């Protein structure tokens, strides 16, 4: 594949590039496996794959510190892997088994990890945006300098509650980074057919929230923009908007016939803009790694992903008594 013309001049270290390559490839192979398990009927319901968008979450996670929070919508598998959640626990939740992160009661769209400060996995488009601002509110209330990454899509960017949240987030200078993952399609509706002004990063202007557009197929560009946003939030200046232009290769969910875009459009993105190929190219041309090195990474990831699939198949279904647990809490939750 041709090197990307606009690829950020890489002053990233070999280790950094290798880490991005590893993390993005893990998400891709995991998602491919999830798609396969779905096809076999082992995963049910809705299953939204992150394939194509890996650079967004990997680039931003590279800017996060311990205690920072993250929350997203239902296309959430990539976010969970990127923040360090266990692939076994994620895959076992996808198959609805007792070793899943939600003990089989959440599924693909509803997973959480208090330990990793991952606050879901939310199924209602736009609803996680005020929740993310609320998480940021809790940090500001406590007077620490943690930030919350609040991810949502170009579709959610048209929801009313997003703007209610922008208003309050700026009014109260909440340390929240609104990450709009613009993959250009809200389910099957192209952005130009749903959105009167396509520059989503400007959507905070009326509220005084700075924003910028970022090439989401370039993990280094994402990281660079993320650093700026994080610094802004951590210094107490309030929210920041990142519109990250990305692309999903697969359908909206597994049952998407993809009649709203051409196969050529998808193939062109894969051939010319793929975020993993980009880093692979940087590693090879920069002589940071050999083909054999990368083959070894591929192999290691294949092993992790296959193990997660086996784990998820072997884990038993939840005990029937689990039907009645976790409806109400008996004791107060621990502070995150």
């Amino acid at each position, binding site marked *: 594949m041709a090197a990307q013309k606009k690829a950020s001049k890489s002053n990233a270290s070999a280790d950094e590039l290798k880490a991005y390559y590893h993390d993005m490839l893990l998400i891709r192979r995991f998602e491919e496996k999830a798609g396969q398990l779905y096809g076999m*009927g082992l995963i049910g319901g809705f299953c939204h794959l992150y394939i194509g968008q890996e650079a967004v979450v990997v680039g931003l996670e590279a800017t996060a510190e311990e205690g920072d929070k993250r929350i997203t919508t239902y296309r959430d598998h990539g976010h969970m892997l990127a923040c360090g959640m266990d692939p076994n626990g994620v895959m076992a939740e996808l198959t609805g088994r007792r070793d*899943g992160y939600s003990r089989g009661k959440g599924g693909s769209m509803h997973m959480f990890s208090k330990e990793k400060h991952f606050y879901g996995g939310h199924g209602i488009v736009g609803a996680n945006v005020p929740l993310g601002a609320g*998480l940021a*509110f809790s940090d500001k209330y406590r007077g620490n300098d943690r930030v919350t990454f609040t991810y949502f899509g170009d579709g959610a960017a048209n929801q009313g509650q997003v703007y209610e949240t922008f208003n309050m987030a700026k009014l109260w200078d909440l340390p929240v980074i609104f990450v709009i993952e613009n993959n250009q399609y809200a389910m099957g509706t192209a952005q130009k057919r749903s959105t009167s002004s396509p520059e989503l990063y400007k959507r905070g202007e009326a509220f005084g929230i700075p924003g910028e557009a970022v090439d989401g197929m370039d993990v280094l560009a994402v990281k660079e923009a993320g650093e700026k946003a994080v610094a802004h939030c951590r210094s107490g200046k309030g929210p920041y908007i990142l519109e990250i232009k990305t692309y999903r290769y697969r359908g909206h969910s597994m*049952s998407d016939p993809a009649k709203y875009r051409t196969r050529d459009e998808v193939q062109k993105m894969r051939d010319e803009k793929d975020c993993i190929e980009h880093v692979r190219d940087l590693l090879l041309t920069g002589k940071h790694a050999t083909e054999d090195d990368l083959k070894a990474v591929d192999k290691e990831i294949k092993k992790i992903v296959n193990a997660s699939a086996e784990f998820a198949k072997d884990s038993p279904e939840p005990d029937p008594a689990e039907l009645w647990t976790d409806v109400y809490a008996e004791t107060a*939750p621990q502070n995150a």
Partner: protein
Amino acid sequence: MPTEILMPALSPTMEEGTLSKWLVKEGDTVASGDILAEIETDKATMEFEAVDEGTIGKILIEAGTEGVKVNTAIAVLLEEGESADDISSTPKQDAKTESKSSETSEPKSDSPKAVPAQAAAPKPDRSPDWPEGTETKKQTMREALNEAMAEEMRRDGDVFIMGEEVAEYQGAYKITQNLLQEFGDKRVIDTPITEHGFAGIGVGAAFGGLRPIVEFMTWNFAMQAIDQILNSAAKTLYMSGGQMGCPIVFRGPNGAAARVGAQHSQDYAAWYAHIPGLKVVQPYSASDAKGLLKTAIRDPNPVVFLENEMLYGKAFDVPVMDDYTVPFGKARIWREGDDVTIVSFGIGMTYAMEAAEKLAEDGISADVIDLRTLRPIDYDTVIASVMKTNRCVTVEEGWPVASIGNHLSAVIMERAFDYLDAPVINCLGKDVPMPYAANLERLALTSTKEVLDAVHKVTYR
């Protein structure tokens, strides 16, 4: 070993499909992401992509085959170094989705579900709310609610209140009076008029470990926010397998006020009582308002706290205690009697109490039960009373269909059918939007007279 390519499930409901077209032939090399075939499901024609790389060794199902069951092997993929000869001639059985199913025994439940009618008479907790001899003072519900919040905010620095006009205006109904002066603007927060947004921010803050009190100027406006109350606050503990609690109180006036018309006069008791994961409170007296609100603020779950504007100014005896709380799920018996059970909550209690007073003059004595909390409901107190009186009338301002009264009638039928000497009657709001005209508004609400008529009907007196 050659890999079998299986007929995929391409929608949540697909069991079989038509393999309309192969886009590869035997001997083709494929990479992950290449389209292998077109498959027609019950909903659409979909492209089916390769997951693994390799060479198509054999196509097992011809293009155009209908009714191909999910998980049937449709082709065989060869990895590097394998040849078509490696394909075993006896095809494997359809890969079954072997799910290690646990025994499907009926789960045990403590929930209020069908219990056989011969169940033993319950023995509800009838301990007094405060110790005998405790000093009491006359206090309005407004003062009691205010005191409850102030006490809890003093006790726990994580408790804060947000809502429209709660701070500088001192509360649209003065429930938050002086809280700003005592606790400052970090903990008493005026919001813009944006219920959906600030309810969500409150829920997020609760996920973050704080204990928000979200005031809705009235519950009518919480319709804008109901998705956050149900989908985010009530369900997340369950969806997270117990990891992510949401200790939050949503509170404000509920039900009809006076002459404010259809959009501002609605009782949400039955709406929220329907939702697992929520706790729902609707106090009638000032002492309950105080004790229940303190319990609500301490509860680790989301609590819907339904007040009533018409009761805000009404004074009741409130115990003078350092820390007065009332537990959820324990009804209060305001009057004891033998002839009929009247069950109500919130402002419905005013009709129930007036009716009981009048009935006593006619020699009919009533048990008057104030449910106080609608989730959980103290079924035992109701059932024990009905087993004694054999008659029951329920009173509420909400609409008839799927009302709290309907639900109680069903539970009484299940648990005390043989004890009933008359059908249970529900006194309810009328099945119309609230009209503005004074006379029509009176007709739309239930009334003391309706309760009296119902009691006479069930007692045949």
